[in-house]
């Protein structure tokens, strides 16, 4: 009898749902999709082959890998799911779970299963996962009514992949709404997630706010990171299990799209690799030749560069087009040697560089996002540039081992250690940023366990640095040629291997516990040659002469035909 009742109620809800889908922009009530019992056996098999490793035998988010993952795998037992179309705190619709499984959760270990598993296996496993929920019941239509949210439609009709062309007035309006609703308290003044270091998720594990300037790591961005829709959805539904609430009552749908426009405008448009869902790294770091001296000030206009990938046709400020590019360097935890770091705090660095022939020096501006800095002098924050110490001895593609060199090929490490002045992670961040107590150390490395300070006098300088709104900026300077035995001697117009390392003091990172990049190349580009200005006209003039000769020759041949001196198509004797 109860079954019957349920069935009728479901039927009514489905009719209602269909009726309301036909009228867009309306919140509609429904019941969660019931567990499809016939799929459970199949779903269980998929789960125990593919999912159990992270999500655990009972779905408690405690599989073998869980303790080494940050963000931890989701615990299904309470029925809290992040990516939904339903209201905050409610169970998701089956379609929400299916899209989550299909697209994965970017920026976490959850991969996109849509290209790996057939559709029927995904539906089956989603139904099995519903049965792992213990505290809630997908079949309980009395208590589990859900309200499917209304997200409106993209008012600007922008198109993927980059969703450019949202009017500035809407972005500015979005910024005002952002300020009014105090989003900065968790997400930080410029959206780098640097607002609150003490947040915990529902299970008591530490959690941080999303970094809006790295939208490719947005959970639920469904492999389409620049689409403002995902932001609207998150604002409307909140993220269950996390401190992210919903704002559906405080902010109208139209305004949610404006916030989304603002949040979306902060994310630099980088070309995204479809396989990894991350920006494609810039493997060649080009140092621009600078006339006269290089400005040693980070704020100088000569150091302002577009964030956008130069492979994307986006409007940028013309005045900075000639400036050096900001190169994207991907970082990962050092999980190869010694004590491993499974939980790096930095995902990437941005490197801009110039050199000057007059000064015979090269400048590297290294920037990265870091939500919170260390206040423990024993664990300062650090960032380093690694070079082959004996560049001249390397043959072909040969390099030292990328993790601090090897016994035969040493590396030269420029490491900047810093502590912010008058900083407290829990206090409201200063809008003007923090000056840094910074010092630089130079090391020679013959392996991760054989790193020693150089005996020669240090030649690397930090000419400027700041920590502002969740972003560290440090400018290194060094002469191209130095005396030290293990100093890299920097040639121009040559590919030089270079790698980057970063230590987050707050995470107690030290020695080989760090974030690391692989080897990149850098090159000091020469000044534009003068021949660039005179050779093209000369070549064009020569060609004009050739054309004149051709006309003359052709006319003369014609005349010879006409005068009968030569006959057409006759092979000369």
């Amino acid at each position, binding site marked *: 009898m109860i079954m019957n009742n349920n069935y009728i109620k479901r039927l009514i809800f489905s009719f209602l749902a269909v009726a309301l889908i036909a009228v867009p922009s309306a919140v509609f009530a429904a019941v969660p999709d019931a567990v499809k019992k016939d799929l459970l056996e199949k779903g269980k098999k998929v789960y125990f082959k593919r999912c159990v490793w992270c999500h655990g035998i009972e779905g408690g988010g405690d599989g073998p*890998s869980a303790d080494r993952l940050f963000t931890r795998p989701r615990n299904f037992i309470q029925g809290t799911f992040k990516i939904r179309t339903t209201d905050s705190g409610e169970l998701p619709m089956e379609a929400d779970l299916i899209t989550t499984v299909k697209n994965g959760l970017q920026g976490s270990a959850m991969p996109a299963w849509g290209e790996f598993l057939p559709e029927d296996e995904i539906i089956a496993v989603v139904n099995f996962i519903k049965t792992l929920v213990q505290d809630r019941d997908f079949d309980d239509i009395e208590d589990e009514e859900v309200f499917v949210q209304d997200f409106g439609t993209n008012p600007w009709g922008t198109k993927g992949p980059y969703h450019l062309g949202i009017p500035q007035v809407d972005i500015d309006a979005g910024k005002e709404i952002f300020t009014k609703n105090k989003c900065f308290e968790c997400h930080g003044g410029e959206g780098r997630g640097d607002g609150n270091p003490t947040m915990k998720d529902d299970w008591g594990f530490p959690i941080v706010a999303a970094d809006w300037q790295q939208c490719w790591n947005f959970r639920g961005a469904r492999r389409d990171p620049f689409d403002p829709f995902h932001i609207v959805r998150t604002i409307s539904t909140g993220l269950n299990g996390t401190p992210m609430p919903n704002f559906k009552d405080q902010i109208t749908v139209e305004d949610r799209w404006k916030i989304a426009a603002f949040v979306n405008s902060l994310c630099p448009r980088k070309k995204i690799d479809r396989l990894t869902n991350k920006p494609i*790294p810039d493997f060649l770091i080009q140092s621009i030749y600078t006339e006269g001296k290089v400005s040693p000030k980070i704020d100088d206009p000569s150091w302002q560069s577009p964030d956008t990938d130069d492979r994307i046709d986006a409007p940028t400020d013309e005045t900075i087009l000639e400036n050096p590019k900001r190169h994207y360097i991907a970082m990962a935890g050092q*999980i190869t*040697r010694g004590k491993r770091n499974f939980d790096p705090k930095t995902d990437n660095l941005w490197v801009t560089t110039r050199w000057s022939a007059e000064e015979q020096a090269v400048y590297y501006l290294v920037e990265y996002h870091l939500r919170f800095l260390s206040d423990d002098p024993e664990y300062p924050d650090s960032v380093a540039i690694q070079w082959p110490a004996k560049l001249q001895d390397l043959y072909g593609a040969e390099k030292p081992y990328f993790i601090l060199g090897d016994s035969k090929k040493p590396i030269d490490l420029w490491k900047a250690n810093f502590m912010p002045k008058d900083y407290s992670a829990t206090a409201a961040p200063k809008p003007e940023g923090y000056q840094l107590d910074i010092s630089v150390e130079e090391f020679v490395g013959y392996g991760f366990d054989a790193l020693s300070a150089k005996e020669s006098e240090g030649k690397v300088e930090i000419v400027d640095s700041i920590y502002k709104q969740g972003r560290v900026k440090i400018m290194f300077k060094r002469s191209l040629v130095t005396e030290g035995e293990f100093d890299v001697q920097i040639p121009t117009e040559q590919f030089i291997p270079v790698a980057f390392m970063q230590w987050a003091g707050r995470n107690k990172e030290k020695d080989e516990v760090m974030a690391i990049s*692989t080897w990149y190349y850098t090159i000091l580009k*020469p000044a*534009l040659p003068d021949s660039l200005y005179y050779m093209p006209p000369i*070549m064009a003039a020569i060609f004009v002469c050739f054309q004149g000769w051709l006309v003359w020759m052709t006319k003369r041949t*014609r005349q010879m035909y006409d005068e009968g001196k030569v006959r*057409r198509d006759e092979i000369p004797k």
Partner: protein
Amino acid sequence: MNKNLQCFLVFVVGLAVFHYAIFPIFTPKEVGWILNRYVYYLLFIAYLIITHLVLRLKPSIAMMALFVMVLGYYFYQSILFPPIPWTLFITYMVMWSIGTFLYVSQDAETFREFRKPIVKTIVGEYKFAQIVVMIAMPILVGFATYKSIYPDYQEPVELRTVHPAPPATTKVHGKTYPLESTNNPFRIDEQDNYKDSFPFLDAEKHEYMKYVTEGGTIFFQNCHYCHGDQLNGLGMFSHVFNPTPANFIDPGTIAMLQESFLFWRVAKGGPGLPNESTPWSSSMPPWEEHLKTDEIWKVILFEYWYTGWHPRTFGTEGSVAGSEGEE
């Protein structure tokens, strides 16, 4: 002249319609027999021939040469799949140009007809064409010179041997293993018998599945960061490293290797590679530093079970117990 213009329109409009409207239909995601890019190309040629016959068009030989050149260019640029590198493209186009030239110069009559518009342009009988060509060409030459002088640096290409020749023996945790005759000690049964068994669920029922479960546990505590939850080399850190982590789903990796080769690679990692495999940039740890010998073998067992591949086996000579039932 009017006829020539008609021909030109038939060609250009036809190409535009075919390329933008019809080509997408013939390039579906899954490869089909009929909906195939080469069929599409043949259809386009058929369209050209039929329209010319129906409309009784007779393009001049120079126009024909132009059509042939464009058809060749279009084929190598858009039709041929997978796309070819530009060096090869240039080689093909040079050959194609020579062929086109042979076609127009096959006899004196056609060759003269071919030359006629060119000569008329040069001597100025086609005044407008002459002015355009005489101005455009030097500008193009100047521009090409500028492009060739402008300093442009591309990231150097580095070649690397993916599966280097293994050594004869490898010493792991104080024990020497000859690679020629070492088998996985945990491969105690035929793998296919466990295709439909599941880790954890069947771990207590079958010893084999117990080893698979243990291997998977180690994999998901250590290896998935690079090799991925799907073992496809797309783990959460994989985009950072160059060379990129191996994709075990690919038939070119573990499917064609012996387990002892894997054992050597896993135990010795990046630093254990020979120089041709760029040991300096491989992020593969020497796992002997982190795992026990048994753990390495169990991970290898798991990788084969999960992907469904079978390890390559030795010939009957080197084969030792445990390989029974394998092909």
